[in-house]
Structures are given as C-alpha cells and as structure tokens.
C-alpha cells in the first residue's frame, strides 16, 4: 500500500534561516513524488515534482530511494513561504494519476 508521512504538523523558522520539510514514503514500485503548496486563501497548487529536478521559488527536493524520503529544502526562508505544504506520491500503471497525500506541514516564517 502507498503511504506518505510528514512527521511535522507545524514548523516555525525565522526569515533567512534554512528550512527543511520532511517527507517519507512507502511504495513498492517506482515512485513519482511531488510537493504541493497552499498559501492562505489560495487554492492548492503544484510546487515541484522530482522528475523535473527544478528549483521553484528557491525550493528543491531530492528523491532518496534508499531512505525513501523526499524532503523539501530552502536555504533562506522568506515570509511569503508561510503556507501549508503537502508531499504527494503517485504510482505507476493504471493508477490514473491518483495521488496519495501526506498529512501536511504548516510552515510559518517569522520576520
């Protein structure tokens, strides 16, 4: 069964500090992993996906198959990064693009 675990419900950092949001997954096949973000009063949207290996808004995430992790990192947090972050896992085959989401982490960046 697919499972995504985000161990921190809440994460607080100060502006300019590094931030890491943790995500661990359980999946027997070849995973596709994503980070979604929801800013206050906005709809949930894709932040980044592991296959593109992009840096979006200064965030990066590396898939570590050995540790089954996909942690989201940013070297210098900004106040506008405050949001709810969800890690999501997609399976292959006939899953029709179905995603399994983690419990979410609320990031607060203090001035």
């Amino acid at each position: 069964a697919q499972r995504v675990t985000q161990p921190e419900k809440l994460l607080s950092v100060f502006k300019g500090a590094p931030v890491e949001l943790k995500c661990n997954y359980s999946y027997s096949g070849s995973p596709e992993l994503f980070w979604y973000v929801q800013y206050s009063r906005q709809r949930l949207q894709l932040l980044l996906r592991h296959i593109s290996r992009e840096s979006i808004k200064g965030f990066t995430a590396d898939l570590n198959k050995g540790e089954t992790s996909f942690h989201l990192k940013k070297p210098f947090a900004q106040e506008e990064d405050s949001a709810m972050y969800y890690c999501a896992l997609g399976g292959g085959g006939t899953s029709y693009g179905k995603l399994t989401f983690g419990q979410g982490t609320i990031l607060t960046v203090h001035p």
Partner: protein
Amino acid sequence: DVKVTQSSRYLVKRTGEKVFLECVQDMDHENMFWYRQDPGLGLRLIYFSYDVKMKEKGDIPEGYSVSREKKERFSLILESASTNQTSMYLCGSGGSYEQYFGPGTRLTVT
C-alpha cells in the same frame, strides 16, 4: 490556464439532507478527483473518475457517491449528510499526476 471551479465556497446543510457538490474543469482532463481536507489528516481521496461514467472508490468512499455524465463535470453526492461529513471538499482534475484544484467547498452539517 487551467480552471477548476466548484459550485459553492460555503455550504450549510442539516443532518439527513442530500447534498450535491459540483465541479467543472475546462482543460479536457480525463481524470477528476474528490478529496476531503481535514487538519492533521491531509487530503484523503473520496472518489476519482478516469473517464465519463467511469469511477473508482478512493480511500474514504463511505457515505458518498459520485456522478460523471460529461467529461468536464464531476459531482459528489452526500446521500444523507451527517455531522462527521463537515469538512473542506476539494475537487481536482489532471492528466499524469499533476493535479489542478478548485478553491474548495467548506461544508458544515448541523
């Protein structure tokens, strides 16, 4: 720009009422999804549909049904609303894993 719209932002219903939540997407996506979003539980998949008239149960389908008569429209139905169905409901559509979401419907059942 993908647009996913939901019929209501806020809805208050009484226990036992039949409730319809509508979702429309304009990007010709084959896949559409309904989730519940609850604090501490994340997004949980209720139902999804991969084609017109095709549907599959997600992780928490009990108490819900869905309808997809047209490709762009996916409806979530609460046959007899209960207080434990008070939640934020998100509709999503997408192709290969990248999903686009509606603004959500906050449903309160009293």
